């Protein structure tokens, strides 16, 4: 008799103990979600069983706006998407429209574009490293990274007058000639930068607490990456040695030698190592580029009024966050018919659900950080 009762109780133990799933909300205002991102976590005790991301808090309708502006007027808008790496956004858009027009930027413009884009890649990764380390608890790397990034922003300011949303490139080439001392500044920064990367590596790479917080956290293997569309350092950390700058070179990337860093595990630690190595490679590209900047015009043959023939084009570049693509449809008027931006952060964020399952709540912050999302790009 007693056994039957016990069995009954055991079968109904869900009601006996009342273990339900708890939904925890990491609200739009949160120090660690890197922007206005809302993540609803379904918890089972301490473990995360699933997530639901609510985005759209920063949706500004860039694609709709682009249909009502001329091609040149759209360019400042795209800077504001991934505002941490504005120069790469501009590069992608300008190159896409140049493809639409069947125009190529002159060699000098292409080389300067590469230099600025690689400096921007370093700056973007520095922001990522500082904030990611801060989320995990290391207070100091943030300030070191900001100190380096300050040098890059000074170069941008001297070049085009703006630090963050630069609008550095124009359709067909560049508007501004590189200033006197541009090569010197870039060279000085690059020569100093290796020592600084070593500082970050000393602080974090061998640190057992860092390894404990990042190893085997947020694992995403190669097949999942490709299936989910995750690109950029996430894909490379999973072991896929692929970089759009090498696979389908654009701007002047085919002239420079650089390595593609790959990871093995696809965990947070590997993504950290890949991004550190990418900063090193960007530095090498910059050094190679400033050795020989070709002379010549900086602007291609583009008229004042840009009216591409009707049709469409898709162009993508390797932005610091992943594959940034522009699909532009033209109806032969001065305003684009449709501008579609393929945002790397939006698509990478989809992988959050898969990466977070089975981890503790404290790891969620680390995993969101390792995805390197910028909400401006997620929401556009």
């Amino acid at each position, binding site marked *: 008799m007693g056994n039957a009762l016990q069995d009954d109780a055991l079968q109904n133990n869900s009601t006996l103990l009342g273990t339900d799933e708890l939904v925890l909300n990491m609200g739009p205002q949160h120090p660690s979600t890197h922007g206005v991102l809302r993540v609803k976590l379904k918890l089972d005790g301490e473990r995360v069983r699933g997530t639901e991301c609510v985005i759209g808090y920063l949706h500004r309708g860039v694609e709709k706006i682009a*249909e009502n502006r001329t091609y040149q007027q759209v360019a400042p808008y795209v800077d504001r998407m991934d505002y941490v790496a504005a120069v790469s956004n501009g590069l992608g858009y300008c190159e896409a429209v140049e493809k639409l027009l069947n125009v190529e930027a002159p060699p000098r413009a292409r080389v300067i574009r590469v230099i600025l884009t690689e400096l921007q890649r370093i700056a973007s990764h520095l922001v990522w490293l500082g904030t990611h380390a801060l989320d995990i608890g290391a207070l100091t790397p943030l300030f070191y990274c900001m100190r380096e990034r300050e040098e890059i922003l000074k170069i941008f300011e001297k070049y085009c007058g703006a630090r963050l949303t630069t609008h550095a490139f124009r359709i067909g080439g560049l508007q501004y000639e590189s200033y006197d001392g541009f090569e010197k500044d870039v060279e000085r920064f690059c020569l100093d930068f290796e020592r600084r990367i070593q500082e970050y590596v000393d602080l974090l790479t061998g640190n057992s607490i860092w390894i404990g917080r990042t190893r085997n956290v947020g694992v995403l293997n190669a097949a999942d990456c490709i299936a989910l569309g995750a690109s950029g350092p996430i894909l490379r950390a999973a072991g896929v040695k692929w970089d759009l700058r090498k696979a389908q070179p654009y701007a002047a990337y085919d002239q420079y030698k650089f390595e593609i860093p790959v990871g093995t595990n696809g965990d947070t630690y590997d993504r950290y190592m890949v991004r550190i190595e990418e900063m090193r490679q960007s530095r090498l590209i910059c050094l190679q580029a400033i050795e020989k900047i070709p002379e010549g015009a900086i602007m291609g043959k583009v008229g004042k009024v840009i009216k591409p023939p009707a049709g469409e084009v898709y162009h993508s570049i390797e932005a610091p966050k992943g594959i940034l693509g522009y699909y532009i449809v033209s109806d032969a008027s001065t305003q684009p018919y449709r501008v579609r931006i393929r945002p790397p952060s939006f698509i990478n964020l989809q992988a959050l659900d898969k990466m977070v399952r089975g981890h503790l709540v404290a790891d969620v912050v680390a995993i969101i950080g390792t995805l390197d999302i910028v909400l401006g790009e997620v929401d556009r």
Partner: protein
Amino acid sequence: MADESKPPQSPDSQKPESGTAPASPAAKTPATPAPPVAAKPAPPPPKPPAPVQIPLDNELTRRYREQFGAAILDALEDRKQAYLVIDAAQLKEIALYSRDFEKFDLLEDFTAVDWPRREKRFDLVAILYSFPHNTRLRLKIPVAENERPVSLVEVWPTADWLEREIYDMFGVEFSGHPGLKRILLPDGWQGHPLRKDYDILLQDNAWVRENLGIDSGQ
């Protein structure tokens, strides 16, 4: 101008931009008396320059046509980028074939374009990339306004949020999608902004009034 087909030459019909046209009989005799047709037809409006698409016929398109025949409505190349226009009815099969046989393992982007004056209003555009072959392919799927194309989530899981965005911005519903709801706009929003009949200054004032407590967003 080369591929601009000229209308059949009528004796004294003059095209406004035939300034560089070779001398036509009409030009030689500007003062010829009126032809039998009494009313002069109005000069036809200037034709927009034809798009730069050229029909594509390579190995890839031949394989697709072999496999799917009539479902491949068209195969074109625009500025050296290939795209296939396919029928929505066979979307899933074509997608599976592309992923498994043609090795297009990455769905790089999935979006839509609105052509309101066409019968099949929306053009779903899927941009595929193949890692092994390092090539891209665009698939264009014309769908009508109330048509429900099949979801591609089972073929490429990345299509999840991409289809939600298409639904949010254009109103195209995908059948078989695990949880199709708005993604960028709030859940109760009325209207689909990227459609061409949605004015750029339009906002869902009802939602704004209800949720933000102000009269209008403007």
